[in-house]
C-alpha cells in the first residue's frame, strides 16, 4: 500500500468508476433529492460522511467479528444493522451538538440507511480485499464522487425547467435522460490512469 495506490483508488472512485454514473449505486436519493441545489449539497455531504464512517466500522466488524467467528454468511444482515445503528447515532449526535445542520438535512438523514451506495461501499471493500486505510479512502472518495454527481445534476436540473420538451417527459423521464447524457460525458474519464 502506498500513496500512489490510494490516489488511484480515489481517482477511480470519484471519476472513472463514479458510484452513480458507472455503478448505479445510490440512484434513488440521486433522483429524489436533486431538485434543488442546496439540498443536494447537504445530502451529498451527509452521504460522504456516512460512507466514510460506515467503511471504517464495517471493515472492523468484518475483520474482528465475522472472519474470526466464521460468520461470513451473516455479512448482509450485520452490515445493514451496523449502518442503521450508525445513521441513528449520527442523527442523535447532530441533534444535540449541531441542530442547524440537523434541521437542514431533515428527512434525508434517516433515508441514508436505505441508500445502496452505503451498503454497496461496505460490500465492495470486502470484495476488493481492501485494507483498513484503503477502505476508508474508498468510502470517502466514493462519497465525494456522489457529491460531485448530485451537485452537477441538481444544477442541470434547475435549468431544465426552462427547457422545451414533450409533456409526457415531465418529472423523472427528463431527469433520467439528463443523467444519461451526464453518464456519457463521465465515460470520457474511463481509461484515465495518471497514477495507476
Amino acid at each position, binding site marked *: 500500500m502506498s500513496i500512489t495506490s490510494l490516489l488511484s483508488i480515489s481517482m477511480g472512485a470519484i471519476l472513472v468508476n463514479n458510484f452513480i*454514473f*458507472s*455503478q*448505479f*449505486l*445510490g*440512484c*434513488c436519493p440521486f*433522483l429524489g433529492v436533486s431538485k434543488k441545489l442546496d439540498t443536494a449539497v447537504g445530502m451529498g455531504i451527509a452521504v460522504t460522511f456516512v460512507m466514510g464512517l460506515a467503511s471504517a466500522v464495517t471493515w472492523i466488524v468484518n475483520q474482528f467479528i465475522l472472519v474470526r467467528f466464521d460468520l461470513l*454468511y*451473516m*455479512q*448482509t*444482515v450485520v452490515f*445493514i*444493522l451496523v449502518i*442503521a445503528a450508525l445513521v441513528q447515532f449520527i442523527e442523535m449526535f447532530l441533534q444535540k451538538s449541531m441542530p442547524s445542520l440537523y434541521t437542514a438535512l431533515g428527512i434525508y438523514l*434517516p433515508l441514508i*440507511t*436505505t*441508500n*445502496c451506495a*452505503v*451498503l*454497496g461501499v461496505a*460490500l*465492495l471493500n470486502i*470484495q476488493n480485499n481492501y485494507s483498513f486505510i484503503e477502505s476508508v479512502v474508498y468510502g470517502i472518495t466514493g462519497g465525494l464522487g456522489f457529491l460531485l454527481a448530485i451537485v452537477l445534476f441538481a444544477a442541470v436540473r434547475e435549468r431544465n425547467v426552462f427547457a422545451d420538451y*414533450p*409533456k*409526457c*417527459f*415531465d*418529472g*423523472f*423521464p*427528463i*431527469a*433520467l*435522460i439528463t*443523467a*444519461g*447524457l451526464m*453518464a*456519457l460525458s463521465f*465515460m470520457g474519464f474511463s481509461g484515465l490512469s495518471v497514477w495507476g
Partner: protein
Amino acid sequence: MNIGKQFKEGLITNNPVLVQVLGTCSTMAITTSFFNGLGMGLSVLIILTLSNIIISAIRKIVPDKIRIAMFIVVIACFVTCVDLLLQAFIPDLSKALGVFLPLIVVNCIILGRAEAFCYKNGVVASTFDGIFQGLGYTAVLMVMSVFRELFGSGTFGAGVISPDGIRIIPEQFPAKLLTLPVGGFICLGFLIAIMQWALTKSKNKTEKEESK
C-alpha cells in the same frame, strides 16, 4: 380486498418502477441481458412476497418506533437465503448480479411496500400485493433487458437458451452504447415517459366519457 384491482395496480397504474419510481438502481444496473433481468426479477418477487407475509403477520406486535429496523432485519434474512441459494445452485447468475444481489436489502420497493402496505393490511392482501408488485417489477426488467440485449449486443437469451444466445442482429450493427450505463438511464427515461403518456391518455378518455 379486490385481487383484480391489486393486479392492475401492481402491473400498470401503480407499477413500482415506472410509476412509483422505486428500485431504479438495480433496474438500470443489471438489465444488460435477459438472463440477468429474469433472475433479478424473480429473486425480488420471491423476497418481496415472503417479507410481505412475515411483516404483515408481525405488524401488531412490533413497536412503532423500531418498525423500520425490524423490517430491515426480516428483509435481510430472506435476501441472505436467496443469495446463498443462488450461489449454490445458479453460480453464473450470482456472479452476473454481483453486489446487486445483497443490495436487494436496500431496494426501496421492498421497504416501501412494507411501510406503505403491509403495515396497514392483513396477511392475505399483503401476499397478493407482494406477488403483483413483484410481477410489475419483473415485467419492467424483462422489457428493458430484452430491448437492451437485442439492440445493444444483437442477441437474445444469452445464458438461458445457449451460452451466447441467438444472434439476431449481425455483429457490426448493434449500438454498444445501450449496454453501457448511459443506455440504462436513457431506456428507463423513455419507458417512464411512455408510461406517463399512456396514463394521461387513458385518464383523459375516462374524463371525457364521464362528462358525456
